[in-house]
């Protein structure tokens, strides 16, 4: 524990805490998306998946706890380092120029400059998303939908709730926008993790170059496809 405290108070240690929690969050985002894509396997598949998750009981709460801790640590570390970094350049330059010329690298630097901002948008989105689909404080009508099984029992109709939610264009579009911010965050964050842990050799560097666009595209396109296909009436029966 005291090791952790000292790490948190140093530049590299704090960054490594951000990177470890970043790994947890990225793995979660990928797992979460894989589960949600079950929506395309139909109502029964998605609802069954949701029911299975719910029935995990204490394990589910353990996973939620780990995620929450990772998320909070990631944010606290991110805000701490951003503040220190801002203070470290107390007088700004009159003229700013990049020394790097590679266009891909320039794109990553631009993404890197707005990590705190894109992160804060993700935070706002996560709160909204939890209130919406997990707790049902927003969009109550959809949340209350139930599916009646052949044996007469009822279960939460996650499928119906998602379709109901994304038929509203404001809701669907807010999800799409949030995912674009997540993509921007990961354009830099994904490769940055490797450097922070010290994995920098020709193999890792070229793998990161190849995997970053694939991973970011998978996360952004996958997550945007669900609200967009429903909003446009391509999936889930008829448009609004």
């Amino acid at each position, binding site marked *: *524990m*005291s*090791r952790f405290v*000292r*790490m948190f108070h*140093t*530049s*590299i*240690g*704090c*960054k*490594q805490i951000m990177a470890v929690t970043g790994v947890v969050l990225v793995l979660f985002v990928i797992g979460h998306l894989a589960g949600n894509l079950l929506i395309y396997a139909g109502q029964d598949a998605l609802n069954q998946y949701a029911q299975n998750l719910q029935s995990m009981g204490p394990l589910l709460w353990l996973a939620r706890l780990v995620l929450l801790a990772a998320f909070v640590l990631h944010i606290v570390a991110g805000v701490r*380092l951003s503040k*220190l*970094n801002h*203070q*470290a*350049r*107390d*007088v*700004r*330059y*009159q*003229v*700013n*120029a*990049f*020394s*790097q*010329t590679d266009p891909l*690298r320039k794109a*990553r*630097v631009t993404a*890197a*400059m707005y*990590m705190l901002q894109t992160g804060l948008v993700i935070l706002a989105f996560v709160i909204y998303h939890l209130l919406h689909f997990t707790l049902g404080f927003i969009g109550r009508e959809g949340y209350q939908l139930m599916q009646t099984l052949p044996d007469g029992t009822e279960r939460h109709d996650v499928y119906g709730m998602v379709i109901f939610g994304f038929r509203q264009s404001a809701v669907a579009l807010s999800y799409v926008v949030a995912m674009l911010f997540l993509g921007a965050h990961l354009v*830099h964050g994904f*490769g*940055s993790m490797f*450097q*922070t*842990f*010290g*994995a*920098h*050799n020709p193999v890792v560097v070229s793998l990161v170059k190849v995997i970053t666009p694939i991973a970011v595209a998978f996360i952004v396109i996958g997550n945007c496809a669900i609200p967009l296909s429903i909003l446009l009436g391509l999936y889930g029966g008829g448009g609004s």
Partner: protein
Amino acid sequence: MNLTLYIWRQRDRNARGQMVKYHLSDVSPDMSFLEMLDLLNQKLYESGEEPIAFDHDCREGICGMCSLVINGQPHGPQAATTTCQLHMRKFKDGDTIYIEPFRARAFPVIRDLVVDRSALDRIIQAGGFISAPTGSAVDANSIPVPRDEAETAMDAAECIGCGACVAACKNASAMLFTAAKIGHLKHLPQGQPERRRRVLSMVEQMDAEGFGNCTNYYECEAACPKEISVKFIAEMNRDYLKAALTDPNYGEKKSSSK
């Protein structure tokens, strides 16, 4: 060549500085950037004005004294070049050039374009050395060093400590400098005994000086006149992590290095 120059003027540490505009004519394209400033200073001197203070020493790219941020780039637009090695033929007749000091909280401006870079010296003092017994010198070549390790150590040792990495970094981080100093020792057998303590104390000294933290932009590498690779930052990160997890004293309250 005729140039319009905007140059940062500041009387001392505590004074407020500002950009001042100068016109300079008769600049030869064969002059180095510092010779161009010498010419300007000559003219200022002749007209009774205070010449512009700027750092320089060897003027051949090895001492690391020269600095300056030229049109937003430390050591100017040419890659792998110190300001003293930059020539005016890189610019065009009629150009406007903005010249600012290296900017970082840890590099206070002393006067005009001169900044105090002694924070870098204190990082080295914190651990950028090996402890060797004095007495008769050890035979040369008595410690074998694998060739590729020796080459990597030399790559890191090319760092001239100019601070351009700090100036280029959006966070004014000194990680490329610190990583190079750690890197050139950690690749040699002589650097091994103090390896763990070195990375801990140099990194923590770097933090204490008020430098920022690396967010992996790699502008430092692009600005470095010696093209030190950011792979040394990765190595430093790895060594730091290893030391933080395995050093028996790491969990204790801060090891007082004094």
